[in-house]
């Protein structure tokens, strides 16, 4: 638990962040990164804290649909931008096809890189519903994983893409 000093309380910024479609009022010290605000002030601990320096991708979230690193994003710069985290992916108890595929095909093993990897894959599928495996590898090349050897991650994204496409056909 971090100690909050008087100086810190006085200099806090107050703003409304839009996280997973919800407007949330929050106050925090201006030096905090989006990752720190998500985890410490909003209790959204699904986004993982990895290298803190932009070298691993574990903290990736979507901001206005783009996969970005929350550890290198100042929270004060996020007002008015749509933030999506892993917590917003499932619809109630219904997992997102990416979450199902990662679980079924071993795309998640220790799981630490998984939230960042899944959000990055979601941004890809939102833009390109039928990615080639080369496009998947390129899009995921900013997400380090020490367990899977990556092949299962690529297969998981491919399977999720197929599921998303058939769900859309079903809906149409």
């Amino acid at each position, binding site marked *: 638990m971090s100690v909050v000093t008087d100086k810190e309380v006085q200099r806090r910024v107050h703003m409304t962040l839009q996280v997973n479609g919800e407007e949330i009022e929050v106050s925090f*010290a201006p030096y905090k990164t989006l990752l720190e605000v998500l985890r410490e002030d909003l209790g959204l601990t699904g986004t993982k804290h990895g290298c*803190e*320096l932009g070298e691993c991708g574990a903290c990736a979230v979507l901001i206005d649909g783009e996969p970005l690193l929350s550890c290198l994003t100042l929270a004060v710069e996020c007002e008015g931008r749509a933030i999506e985290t892993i917590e917003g992916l499932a619809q109630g108890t219904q997992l997102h096809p990416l979450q199902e595929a990662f679980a079924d095909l071993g795309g998640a093993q220790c799981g630490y890189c998984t939230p960042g990897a899944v959000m990055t894959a979601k941004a890809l599928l939102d833009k390109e519903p039928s990615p080639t495996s080369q496009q998947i590898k390129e899009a995921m090349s900013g997400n380090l994983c020490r367990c899977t050897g990556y092949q299962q991650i690529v297969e998981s994204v491919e399977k999720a893409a197929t599921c998303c496409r058939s769900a859309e056909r079903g809906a149409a």
Partner: protein
Amino acid sequence: MMRLPWFNYRSPKSVAEAARILAAEGRDAMLIAGGTDLLPNMKRRQQTPATLVSLRQVGGLKDVVNGRGLTLGAGLTLSEVVNTPALKDSCGYRALHQAAAQVASPHLRNMGTLGGNLCLDTRCLYYNQNEDWRRAIDFCMKCNGETCWVATSSKRCMAVSSTDTAPALISLGAKVRLVSAAGDRELELNDLYQNDGTEYLTRQPDEILTAVSLPDLSGWKSTYWKLRRRGSFDFPILGVAAAVRAAPDGTVLDARIVLGAVSSRPLMTEAGGLLLGGKLTDEAIAAAGKKATSAAKPLDNTDLDLYWRKDVVSSFVGYALREIRGDDMSATRLRIMRQL
């Protein structure tokens, strides 16, 4: 856990307002655009500005003007640069497209800007470490210390210029616009840099790099080759940018070969001059490679073996010039990019 230090955060809406803040705050203020270079440095206490002046809300920094030549706003993210149609479809500007596409990782390219990559802090194994690590060696010349640990008798800091886009843009003859409260100036990008790891930019602390302009390069071909350990994330440990204008019969009329990551600044070599008036034969390419290698001065302060890094300069210049000549280098490129 590494927290950012305290800072005052300012968010001007215009270049003029940002310039006024910088003029008033002096050297204690720094600009922040994408933050991908500055924030890790702040977490490690390599840079501790009292005030951050954010360029996020400053208008006009993402403008692209495509007329006679091409002007790119310095606030374009590297992903936006990669997706600029005028770059994708042009043989002349290809080096910039290839360089921007190979910076760091997709996430970092979605955040980091063109201007930020041009002003990228120089890097060194003795500098890019956390504060405790650096204190243990009594710091180094670049930050809080007196000794350059990679060359202990050196009078200057030997940290390495690690930008990918600068060598590419210098090979293309780019100019940059710098704006301060006192006025504007435009200078050759090549003159933005000096060979000192600490004072590596001639930009003054109160100046804002707002735009990069490229001349009309019809008739030119350019390319960028990057060496790094992994196919993603890593900074270059060698960058070779080449731009050539040739007559229809293949006679070289203009040629520039610029090296990255082998010095404290992007290095314009004399190798291009050797090619003038002749054709891109294997012999001419080998001679240019040899000349470029003699200019490269890598030191033992980045990844991989120092002597090998110097040795491969010639090969990389060869890859670049053979690609410009029209050889099919796609398999070599994929291998070098670690994409096979």
